[in-house]
């Protein structure tokens, strides 16, 4: 058996596969399919300081090889998360990344501070949500804002801090360097690309929010490119995601420079996708006589 374990910020993951924030809730639903301990980690639904109700429906639109969503960070708030969801998740023998967001740097810091006194393993700061009016994407598209919000959160917590980047930017490497400078321990990318669908019979956008975030297999090449560019620009580890649907995709993203891989909308097509991907990675490594998955991280040989 090849060794699938990876280390990020001194946290050991038994394998590199992590269901992405927002697609997996707090794990309870998917636990009805398989034990959560099979996963390398879980990134929980984005948590804000106070409860948020999210956007009006429809929040979902299908696209070729993907989907749009405009959920808008519906969540019960950090206090509820800490009391009712986190303790349960922490018994599941897998790494928990608490994904957080906010409208202001102060709100993000407040959430991080509350999580700092829990046993959560890592904090993933989302500076890239395209579905909320304030904060969210605005943080992720300006180097100054990205730096500000990262340093505010950095001051609020000693936990390993992963900053999740938006692909809706001119230069992903500039933003990545800004958050590295501000104290991020790792970066994760990519969040969804801003998109839109229109029902041509009613002339109405499919999403009530008009626009939403594009995810799924269709965005995979963009993810590979951005992970590769980012991994070459920063010294901190990169967690890759965006359109991963198979073990081969996960291997490709790791070759591009990712130390671990998150799996998002693939779980909607197949709830077993994360566990199948782990098995497929294992098969690939064995067939190619690679003893540890760590060997493939950043192993692409560019022309």
């Amino acid at each position, binding site marked *: 058996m090849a060794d699938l374990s990876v280390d990020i910020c001194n946290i050991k993951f038994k394998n590199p596969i992590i269901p992405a924030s927002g697609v997996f*809730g707090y794990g309870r639903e998917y636990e009805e399919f398989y034990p959560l301990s099979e996963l390398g980690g879980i990134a929980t639904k984005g948590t804000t300081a106070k409860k948020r109700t999210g956007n009006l429906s429809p929040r979902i639109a299908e696209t070729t090889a993907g989907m749009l969503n405009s959920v808008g960070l519906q969540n019960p708030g950090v206090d509820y998360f800490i009391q009712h969801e986190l303790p349960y998740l922490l018994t599941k023998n897998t790494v928990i990344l608490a994904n957080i967001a906010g409208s202001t740097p102060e709100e993000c810091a407040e959430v991080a501070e509350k999580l700092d006194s829990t046993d959560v393993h890592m904090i993933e700061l989302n500076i890239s949500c395209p579905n909320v009016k304030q904060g969210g994407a605005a943080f992720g598209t300006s180097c100054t804002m990205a730096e500000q919000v990262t340093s505010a959160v950095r001051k609020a917590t000693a936990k390993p801090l992963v900053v999740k980047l938006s692909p809706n930017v001119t230069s992903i490497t500039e933003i990545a360097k800004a958050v590295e400078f501000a104290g991020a321990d790792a970066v994760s990318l990519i969040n969804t690309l801003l998109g839109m669908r229109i029902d041509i019979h009613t002339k109405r956008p499919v999403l009530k929010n008009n626009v939403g975030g594009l995810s799924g297999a269709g965005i995979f090449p963009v993810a590979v490119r951005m992970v590769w560019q980012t991994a070459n620009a920063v010294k901190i580890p990169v967690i890759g995601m965006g359109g991963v649907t198979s073990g081969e995709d996960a291997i490709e993203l790791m070759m591009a420079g990712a130390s671990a891989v998150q799996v998002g909308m693939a*779980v909607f097509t*197949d709830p077993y996708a994360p566990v199948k991907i782990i098995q497929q990675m294992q098969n690939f490594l064995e067939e190619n006589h690679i003893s540890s998955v760590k060997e493939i991280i950043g192993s692409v040989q560019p022309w």
Partner: protein
Amino acid sequence: MKYVQGNYPIIQKKAIAENVFSFTVLCPEIAEKACAGQFVHILPEGFSLRRPISIAGIDRKNGTIRIVFVIKHKGTQALADLHQGEYINMIGPLGHGFTLMPNAQHVILVGGGIGVPPMLPLAEYYQEKATVITGFRSFPQIILQEDFEACHAQVICCTEDGSAGAMKGLVTTPLEQLLSEGADAVFACGALPMLKAVASVCQRAEIYCEISLEERMACGVGACLGCACRINRSGNEEFLHVCKDGPVFKAEEVVF
């Protein structure tokens, strides 16, 4: 493990009206647990999102469920192209179904168009204690009348144009008449305007009513928060989720 996903064989395929198909699928694990009002989440091959389809029949003895669907667009077209003997990828049974009331003397089931099929498991349960009101646009859309009759339920069929010798008009006309004689409960599924009308008729008559809602879904299990609907429970309006908290809700809770 509450949910199952798998590839299950279609053991019978029937075209029952224009663009409407009935599949009987062999899936003992799903049949075992399924309740009236629940749905299965079906992946048409080559698509990224699954399609929610109501369970229209549960046969525990033979380990089968039945689904009845209309071709709406590409995904349901792909399902309709499947043949008997081929496999269908489903997750199920999902959602919170209709309340079964063992002591009820008379219940009314209201189905509009492609909202008619999920009424069938209820008719099987309530048998002669059920009156089924079905509404269709016109003659070619009429489905499942014999199936309801086979359950010994009273069946009333309405068409908007009065075709097929049916009662002309909307389901709410016979519903109002029946409710004036009282009933223990009304269960309904159909387009939103119909559900809204049924809910308000029931509210006026002070009769308990449950309705089945639709929303676009991704996960189907309550994890992604994609299928939000506005529900007013205990005085607080909040977004609940059609796939897990529903699809069936108490009509009085739904904010239309």
